[in-house]
Protein backbone atom coordinates (compact mmCIF):
# COMPACT_ATOMS: atom_id res chain seq x y z
CA UNK A 1 0.00 0.00 0.00
CA UNK A 2 1.25 3.42 -0.95
CA UNK A 3 2.06 5.87 1.83
CA UNK A 4 -0.23 8.45 0.19
CA UNK A 5 -3.16 6.00 0.48
CA UNK A 6 -2.59 5.82 4.24
CA UNK A 7 -2.25 9.58 4.76
CA UNK A 8 -5.94 10.51 4.68
CA UNK A 9 -7.92 12.45 7.29
CA UNK A 10 -10.06 9.42 8.19
CA UNK A 11 -6.95 7.37 9.04
CA UNK A 12 -5.42 9.94 11.38
CA UNK A 13 -4.73 8.50 14.84
CA UNK A 14 -2.54 11.21 16.36
CA UNK A 15 -2.05 14.91 15.81
CA UNK A 16 -1.23 17.99 17.83
CA UNK A 17 -3.97 18.88 20.31
CA UNK A 18 -6.17 21.81 19.35
CA UNK A 19 -5.54 23.21 22.82
CA UNK A 20 -1.95 23.99 21.83
CA UNK A 21 -1.57 27.21 19.84
CA UNK A 22 0.29 27.40 16.54
CA UNK A 23 3.12 29.37 18.17
CA UNK A 24 6.46 27.59 18.00
CA UNK A 25 7.49 26.44 21.48
CA UNK A 26 10.34 28.54 22.82
CA UNK A 27 12.06 25.51 24.35
CA UNK A 28 15.37 24.08 23.19
CA UNK A 29 15.20 21.04 20.88
CA UNK A 30 14.45 17.87 22.87
CA UNK A 31 13.31 19.66 26.05
CA UNK A 32 10.80 17.73 28.16
CA UNK A 33 8.76 20.91 28.76
CA UNK A 34 7.23 20.62 25.29
CA UNK A 35 6.08 17.05 25.90
CA UNK A 36 4.75 17.95 29.35
CA UNK A 37 2.79 20.92 27.93
CA UNK A 38 1.31 18.78 25.20
CA UNK A 39 0.37 15.90 27.52
CA UNK A 40 -1.38 18.31 29.89
CA UNK A 41 -3.36 19.88 27.07
CA UNK A 42 -4.23 16.47 25.61
CA UNK A 43 -5.62 15.35 28.98
CA UNK A 44 -7.71 18.54 29.32
CA UNK A 45 -8.95 18.09 25.75
CA UNK A 46 -9.87 14.41 26.30
CA UNK A 47 -11.69 15.21 29.54
CA UNK A 48 -13.59 18.03 27.77
CA UNK A 49 -12.81 20.54 30.52
CA UNK A 50 -10.98 23.19 28.47
CA UNK A 51 -13.68 25.79 29.19
CA UNK A 52 -13.46 25.16 32.94
CA UNK A 53 -9.70 24.95 33.37
CA UNK A 54 -7.50 27.79 34.57
CA UNK A 55 -3.73 27.43 34.53
CA UNK A 56 -1.08 29.37 36.39
CA UNK A 57 2.26 29.77 34.65
CA UNK A 58 5.48 30.22 36.63
CA UNK A 59 8.66 32.18 36.11
CA UNK A 60 11.35 30.20 34.36
CA UNK A 61 11.59 28.49 31.00
CA UNK A 62 7.83 27.87 31.00
CA UNK A 63 6.97 31.52 31.73
CA UNK A 64 5.46 31.78 28.25
CA UNK A 65 3.12 28.82 28.79
CA UNK A 66 0.19 31.20 28.14
CA UNK A 67 1.48 31.66 24.59
CA UNK A 68 1.32 27.93 23.92
CA UNK A 69 -1.64 26.65 25.93
CA UNK A 70 -4.92 27.71 24.36
CA UNK A 71 -6.89 27.83 27.63
CA UNK A 72 -7.47 30.46 30.33
CA UNK A 73 -4.11 30.95 31.95
CA UNK A 74 -2.47 33.54 34.14
CA UNK A 75 1.08 34.11 35.21
CA UNK A 76 2.26 34.50 38.79
CA UNK A 77 5.24 36.23 40.40
CA UNK A 78 8.26 34.00 40.85
CA UNK A 79 7.30 30.99 42.98
CA UNK A 80 3.84 32.30 43.86
CA UNK A 81 1.83 30.12 41.48
CA UNK A 82 0.31 27.90 44.25
CA UNK A 83 -0.83 31.05 46.11
CA UNK A 84 -2.46 32.45 42.97
CA UNK A 85 -4.00 29.03 42.24
CA UNK A 86 -5.38 28.94 45.79
CA UNK A 87 -7.15 32.24 45.20
CA UNK A 88 -8.60 31.10 41.86
CA UNK A 89 -9.71 27.72 43.22
CA UNK A 90 -11.42 29.32 46.23
CA UNK A 91 -13.13 31.96 44.09
CA UNK A 92 -14.37 29.39 41.55
CA UNK A 93 -14.56 26.06 43.40
CA UNK A 94 -16.11 24.38 40.35
CA UNK A 95 -13.13 25.18 38.08
CA UNK A 96 -10.11 22.97 37.43
CA UNK A 97 -7.03 24.91 38.51
CA UNK A 98 -3.48 23.81 37.84
CA UNK A 99 -0.02 25.30 38.21
CA UNK A 100 2.86 24.41 35.95
CA UNK A 101 6.21 25.08 37.63
CA UNK A 102 9.88 24.33 37.30
CA UNK A 103 12.32 23.41 40.03
CA UNK A 104 13.76 26.92 40.38
CA UNK A 105 10.25 28.28 40.83
CA UNK A 106 8.61 25.61 42.98
CA UNK A 107 11.56 24.23 44.98
CA UNK A 108 13.55 27.42 45.56
CA UNK A 109 11.81 30.80 45.73
CA UNK A 110 8.33 29.24 45.97
CA UNK A 111 9.02 26.62 48.67
CA UNK A 112 6.86 28.39 51.26
CA UNK A 113 3.88 28.85 48.91
CA UNK A 114 4.14 25.26 47.72
CA UNK A 115 4.37 23.70 51.15
CA UNK A 116 1.53 25.79 52.60
CA UNK A 117 -0.76 25.21 49.61
CA UNK A 118 -0.06 21.48 50.00
CA UNK A 119 -0.58 21.61 53.74
CA UNK A 120 -3.93 23.37 53.31
CA UNK A 121 -4.89 20.71 50.76
CA UNK A 122 -6.19 23.16 48.18
CA UNK A 123 -8.20 21.52 45.41
CA UNK A 124 -5.60 22.15 42.68
CA UNK A 125 -3.12 20.26 40.53
CA UNK A 126 0.58 21.11 40.70
CA UNK A 127 2.73 19.98 37.77
CA UNK A 128 6.38 20.25 38.76
CA UNK A 129 9.01 19.88 36.05
CA UNK A 130 12.35 19.00 37.63
CA UNK A 131 15.44 19.25 35.46
CA UNK A 132 17.94 19.92 38.23
CA UNK A 133 19.05 23.31 36.95
CA UNK A 134 17.93 26.88 36.31
CA UNK A 135 17.47 26.59 32.55
CA UNK A 136 16.29 30.02 31.46
CA UNK A 137 18.83 32.14 33.31
CA UNK A 138 21.86 30.22 32.09
CA UNK A 139 22.24 26.93 33.92
CA UNK A 140 22.79 27.98 37.54
CA UNK A 141 22.61 25.48 40.40
CA UNK A 142 19.07 24.73 41.59
CA UNK A 143 17.99 23.13 44.90
CA UNK A 144 17.47 19.90 42.92
CA UNK A 145 20.93 19.87 41.30
CA UNK A 146 22.54 16.49 42.00
CA UNK A 147 25.66 15.97 44.09
CA UNK A 148 28.75 16.52 41.95
CA UNK A 149 26.72 17.96 39.08
CA UNK A 150 28.35 20.88 37.34
CA UNK A 151 26.43 24.08 36.71
CA UNK A 152 27.49 27.64 36.00
CA UNK A 153 27.42 28.47 39.74
CA UNK A 154 28.91 25.13 40.85
CA UNK A 155 31.66 24.72 38.22
CA UNK A 156 33.46 22.04 40.24
CA UNK A 157 30.26 20.13 40.93
CA UNK A 158 27.76 20.48 43.76
CA UNK A 159 29.45 19.93 47.09
CA UNK A 160 27.11 18.64 49.82
CA UNK A 161 29.11 20.13 52.68
CA UNK A 162 28.75 23.74 51.58
CA UNK A 163 25.74 23.60 49.23
CA UNK A 164 23.48 21.06 50.89
CA UNK A 165 21.80 17.98 49.44
CA UNK A 166 19.46 17.98 46.44
CA UNK A 167 15.95 18.76 47.64
CA UNK A 168 13.38 15.98 47.23
CA UNK A 169 10.39 18.26 47.09
CA UNK A 170 7.97 15.52 46.09
CA UNK A 171 8.79 13.28 49.09
CA UNK A 172 8.56 16.36 51.30
CA UNK A 173 5.02 17.31 50.27
CA UNK A 174 3.87 13.67 50.27
CA UNK A 175 4.10 13.71 54.07
CA UNK A 176 1.57 16.53 54.37
CA UNK A 177 -1.96 15.33 55.21
CA UNK A 178 -3.70 17.72 52.77
CA UNK A 179 -2.07 16.15 49.75
CA UNK A 180 -4.14 13.45 48.09
CA UNK A 181 -2.01 12.19 45.21
CA UNK A 182 1.76 12.45 44.71
CA UNK A 183 3.66 10.85 41.88
CA UNK A 184 6.94 11.19 40.01
CA UNK A 185 7.01 10.61 36.26
CA UNK A 186 9.17 11.25 33.20
CA UNK A 187 8.39 12.03 29.56
CA UNK A 188 11.50 11.14 27.55
CA UNK A 189 10.25 7.82 26.12
CA UNK A 190 6.84 6.67 24.91
CA UNK A 191 6.34 4.41 27.96
CA UNK A 192 7.12 7.19 30.41
CA UNK A 193 5.07 9.75 28.48
CA UNK A 194 2.00 7.47 28.45
CA UNK A 195 2.32 6.83 32.20
CA UNK A 196 2.74 10.55 32.83
CA UNK A 197 -0.39 11.26 30.83
CA UNK A 198 -2.35 8.78 32.96
CA UNK A 199 -1.01 10.44 36.11
CA UNK A 200 -2.05 13.91 34.89
CA UNK A 201 -5.51 12.57 34.07
CA UNK A 202 -5.84 11.05 37.54
CA UNK A 203 -4.83 14.39 39.05
CA UNK A 204 -7.54 16.32 37.17
CA UNK A 205 -10.07 13.64 38.11
CA UNK A 206 -9.11 14.19 41.75
CA UNK A 207 -9.91 17.87 41.27
CA UNK A 208 -13.31 16.97 39.86
CA UNK A 209 -14.01 14.76 42.90
CA UNK A 210 -12.75 17.58 45.20
CA UNK A 211 -10.21 15.24 46.77
CA UNK A 212 -7.58 17.87 47.46
CA UNK A 213 -4.17 18.60 46.07
CA UNK A 214 -2.48 16.43 43.44
CA UNK A 215 1.25 16.86 42.94
CA UNK A 216 2.96 15.51 39.84
CA UNK A 217 6.71 15.75 39.46
CA UNK A 218 8.07 15.25 35.95
CA UNK A 219 11.79 14.49 35.90
CA UNK A 220 13.02 16.13 32.73
CA UNK A 221 16.20 16.93 30.88
CA UNK A 222 17.88 20.27 30.24
CA UNK A 223 20.22 19.46 27.41
CA UNK A 224 21.36 23.07 26.97
CA UNK A 225 22.04 23.53 30.68
CA UNK A 226 23.71 20.14 31.00
CA UNK A 227 25.76 20.81 27.81
CA UNK A 228 24.67 17.61 26.05
CA UNK A 229 22.70 16.57 22.99
CA UNK A 230 19.04 15.72 23.67
CA UNK A 231 19.68 11.97 23.39
CA UNK A 232 22.78 12.11 25.60
CA UNK A 233 20.88 14.12 28.19
CA UNK A 234 18.07 11.55 28.27
CA UNK A 235 20.59 8.75 28.89
CA UNK A 236 22.35 10.86 31.55
CA UNK A 237 19.00 11.51 33.17
CA UNK A 238 18.20 7.78 33.34
CA UNK A 239 21.63 6.98 34.81
CA UNK A 240 21.93 9.85 37.29
CA UNK A 241 18.59 11.53 37.98
CA UNK A 242 16.42 8.41 38.31
CA UNK A 243 18.47 6.74 41.10
CA UNK A 244 18.09 9.89 43.24
CA UNK A 245 14.58 10.78 42.04
CA UNK A 246 12.98 7.31 41.65
CA UNK A 247 9.89 7.24 39.42
CA UNK A 248 6.51 5.99 40.55
CA UNK A 249 3.58 6.80 42.80
CA UNK A 250 4.51 8.10 46.25
CA UNK A 251 1.05 8.75 47.67
CA UNK A 252 -2.21 7.44 46.23
CA UNK A 253 -5.65 8.32 47.63
CA UNK A 254 -4.03 9.98 50.61
CA UNK A 255 -2.03 6.89 51.60
CA UNK A 256 1.77 6.82 51.43
CA UNK A 257 3.21 3.91 49.45
Amino acid sequence: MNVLDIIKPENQVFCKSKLMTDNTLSYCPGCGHGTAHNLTMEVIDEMGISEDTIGVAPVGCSVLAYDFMNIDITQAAHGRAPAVATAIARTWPEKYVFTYQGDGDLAAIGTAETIHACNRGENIVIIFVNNGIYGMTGGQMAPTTLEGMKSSTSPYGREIESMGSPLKMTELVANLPGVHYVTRQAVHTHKHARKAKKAIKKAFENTRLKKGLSFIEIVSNCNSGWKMTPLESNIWMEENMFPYFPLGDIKVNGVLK
Partner: protein
Amino acid sequence: MAKVKGAIVVDTEACKGCEVCIPVCPEDVIGMTSTVNRKGYHYAYMNNPEACTGCTNCAIVCPDRAISVYRVKVTA
Protein backbone atom coordinates in the same frame (compact mmCIF):
# COMPACT_ATOMS: atom_id res chain seq x y z
CA MET B 1 -4.73 -11.90 8.85
CA ALA B 2 -5.26 -8.24 9.30
CA LYS B 3 -2.07 -6.26 9.25
CA VAL B 4 -1.61 -2.71 10.37
CA LYS B 5 0.17 -0.20 8.22
CA GLY B 6 1.04 3.27 9.30
CA ALA B 7 2.58 6.48 8.10
CA ILE B 8 3.81 9.68 9.68
CA VAL B 9 3.72 13.23 8.43
CA VAL B 10 6.37 15.55 9.84
CA ASP B 11 5.72 19.27 10.09
CA THR B 12 9.16 20.16 8.75
CA GLU B 13 9.06 23.73 10.03
CA ALA B 14 8.00 22.68 13.55
CA CYS B 15 10.64 19.91 13.85
CA LYS B 16 13.71 21.03 15.79
CA GLY B 17 15.79 17.96 14.96
CA CYS B 18 16.16 16.73 18.56
CA GLU B 19 16.03 13.07 17.38
CA VAL B 20 14.10 11.93 20.48
CA CYS B 21 11.69 10.11 18.12
CA ILE B 22 14.42 7.89 16.62
CA PRO B 23 15.23 5.51 19.56
CA VAL B 24 11.55 5.04 20.51
CA CYS B 25 10.56 3.73 17.05
CA PRO B 26 10.33 -0.08 17.32
CA GLU B 27 10.60 -0.50 13.54
CA ASP B 28 13.48 1.92 12.95
CA VAL B 29 11.43 3.96 10.49
CA ILE B 30 12.63 7.48 11.20
CA GLY B 31 15.76 9.13 9.84
CA MET B 32 17.04 12.70 9.76
CA THR B 33 17.33 14.64 6.51
CA SER B 34 20.63 16.12 5.39
CA THR B 35 18.78 19.28 4.37
CA VAL B 36 17.65 21.84 6.94
CA ASN B 37 14.44 23.79 7.52
CA ARG B 38 14.12 27.56 7.73
CA LYS B 39 15.43 27.59 11.29
CA GLY B 40 18.46 25.52 10.29
CA TYR B 41 17.42 22.25 11.93
CA HIS B 42 17.67 18.84 10.27
CA TYR B 43 14.19 17.34 10.42
CA ALA B 44 12.76 13.84 10.78
CA TYR B 45 11.41 11.89 7.80
CA MET B 46 10.27 8.34 7.03
CA ASN B 47 13.47 6.62 6.02
CA ASN B 48 11.84 3.19 5.93
CA PRO B 49 8.13 3.83 5.21
CA GLU B 50 7.24 0.16 4.58
CA ALA B 51 7.92 -0.80 8.21
CA CYS B 52 5.75 1.85 9.93
CA THR B 53 2.89 0.43 12.01
CA GLY B 54 1.45 3.76 13.17
CA CYS B 55 2.14 3.00 16.84
CA THR B 56 2.34 6.75 17.72
CA ASN B 57 5.45 6.28 19.90
CA CYS B 58 7.32 8.95 17.95
CA ALA B 59 4.42 11.40 18.12
CA ILE B 60 3.89 11.12 21.89
CA VAL B 61 7.54 11.88 22.69
CA CYS B 62 7.85 14.72 20.17
CA PRO B 63 8.14 17.87 22.33
CA ASP B 64 6.95 20.05 19.45
CA ARG B 65 4.20 17.68 18.27
CA ALA B 66 5.63 17.92 14.77
CA ILE B 67 4.51 14.37 13.93
CA SER B 68 0.98 13.32 12.93
CA VAL B 69 0.30 9.61 12.63
CA TYR B 70 -2.00 7.74 10.25
CA ARG B 71 -2.95 4.07 10.48
CA VAL B 72 -4.99 1.61 8.39
CA LYS B 73 -5.87 -2.06 8.73
CA VAL B 74 -4.86 -4.07 5.66
CA THR B 75 -6.47 -7.46 5.04
CA ALA B 76 -3.97 -9.51 3.08
